[in-house]
């Protein structure tokens, strides 16, 4: 019998432990990457992944298979929600960037940064940079770029103003772009040094 995700799901619903393990193996790598983007601490991330998978396996009966990729998308949503809950629980009361935005500061969208050339930058480096963005910026950036949420949706998810979401995203973009550009420059310089040394 050729393996298909739908058939696997049926077995999981039957309570087949092997099928559960298989499902886990299939998606854990991707879901770990998702959690990594949101949660900078490894121990926290492990807890969140564990909670997510427990939730996945206990509510999988409610999931409706809608074609290829639907299962992964559903699992990703669970991981993202768990991550956001965690961030909300551990958010300090006073968060400066948020307050500044609430005052209604006008953000200059064209404030200069060069669009970085991400072609040669390894993905794990980019993920590390995203991971180390300041707390407020990170969630917004992730939700907008990777989860494709609009600022309106983000505002609702994070309980912030839509304008806050937009400005935090802009700040995050600037920061990340600067970091990537620095990385690329260092890479190029090292390359030049090597060529010069020859």
């Amino acid at each position, binding site marked *: *019998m*050729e*393996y298909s995700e739908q*058939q*696997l799901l049926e*077995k999981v619903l039957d*309570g*087949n*432990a*092997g*099928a*559960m*393990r*298989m499902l*886990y*193996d*299939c998606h*854990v*790598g*991707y879901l*770990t*990457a998702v959690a*990594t983007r949101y949660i900078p601490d*490894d121990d926290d*991330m*492990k807890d969140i*992944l*564990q909670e997510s*998978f*427990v939730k996945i*396996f*206990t509510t999988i009966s409610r999931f409706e298979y809608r074609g290829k990729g639907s299962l992964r998308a559903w699992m990703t949503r669970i991981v993202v929600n768990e991550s956001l809950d965690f961030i909300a629980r551990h958010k300090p009361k006073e968060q400066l960037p948020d307050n500044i935005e609430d005052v209604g500061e006008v953000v200059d969208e064209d404030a200069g940064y060069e*669009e*970085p*050339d*991400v*072609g040669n930058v390894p*993905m*794990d480096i*980019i*993920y590390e940079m995203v991971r180390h963005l300041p707390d407020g910026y990170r969630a917004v950036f992730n939700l907008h*770029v*990777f989860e*494709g949420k609009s600022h309106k949706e983000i505002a609702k998810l994070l309980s912030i103003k839509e304008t806050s979401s937009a400005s935090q995203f802009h700040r995050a*973009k600037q920061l990340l*772009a600067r970091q*990537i550009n620095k990385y690329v420059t260092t890479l190029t310089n090292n390359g030049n040094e090597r060529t010069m040394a020859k």
Partner: protein
Amino acid sequence: MKEQWLNKIKERSDNFECRPPVDLWDGIQQSLVDKGVVKEKKQATVVPIWRRWGLVVAAVFLLSVITFVALRNPEIIENDVEKLATVEKSVESDTAITTSPSVLPSAIKSTLANAAPLTTYRASTTTIIEQKTATVEASDGIVLPVDTVTESESTVIPKIVAEKENDETQRPDMRQYSRQSKNDYNVFSNHGMTISNGSSQKSKWSAGLFASNMTGVDNSMTGYGNLRYGASPLVTMTHAWASNAMANIMFNNLNGTAETSVKHHLPVKVGASLKYAITDRWGIESGLTYTMLRSDLTSGGENNYYATEQTLHYIGIPLKASYTVWQNNKFKAYVTAGGQMDVPVSGRSVTDYVSGGELAEQVTEDVDVNRLQWSVTGAVGAQYDIIDKIGIYVEPGVSYYFDDRSDVVTIYKEKPCNFSLQIGLRLNLD
């Protein structure tokens, strides 16, 4: 308003994966068990217990060999005593050394002819007789094995001396002497070495070839397995992602049980060694070894499984010290201890994926262990000199292989402490 670079990042992220945290699955399972969603499942692991017996067998074997040899040649002990007596007698008169050929074997006589000043000789001799149970540093630093003469035997010495004086025909066994001197054991011959400045001295160097073996390991457990730690069959086997072979195997086994059996073959170890005798009893040995480790893993069900054969090659450098506990002209019993550093030089793993009873795919990959393998060994040894220059030895012992902190599963990880038997030839270089 999203820029190109962000789109590119998003696109690449669709296929980007990270290594999951260690023990994540265990945590999930435990949590599910706690919530009553799944039943607790016990994983059976079979661990061989006979390794302990192997140690016992080796010890008994060696003990019996030594006992057998010692019992067979009780006169060996007496001969030592005789030699001491002869030494003492020779010292008493200056002329004895050069003018009593009837007492001294010819082999030693010639070395004495090139003697250094007698004073050196005499001094060391008296020391020996006084300290019967201690080892003594002779003038050139050779330790004389006096301690083989026990208290009870020391009382025999005067008696034999007396007998000697009475019975002129009783001479030390000449054959014994010549063998002794070459084996660097006899007290007298050591003196011979001192005097002659080592001209007829047995070499301090010896070289050897050996082969060594330790016991193999068989293991079996339920579920899927891998010869790389932390590797789950699907997640880190990137090749499996591309092919469906692995997924098919796992899926088709879902209705049954998947089992893994691992067999670690006996490591094959051969080597060459060089031994330097620091003193008469102590020696230091090093060399070069080659070890091949082979492990077979089969995982899955009857018609749907994958089988991996992993072969690793190591080059090792041992360093051992050995102490001769007892020896006579032909036999030597000793203890040795030391360590070894093994460097992995190459490795390969071939995996067959069988789906529906047919070979679906074969994957070959290099295994890069990338870590040094350290080990320590303690052994007892018995050496028998077939001819003057060549001896055959057997060294049963215990080795402990330290965790090399690599993710490659080897027999050393499954069984770090094990019994090994090393057999080899030792050549006395000149």
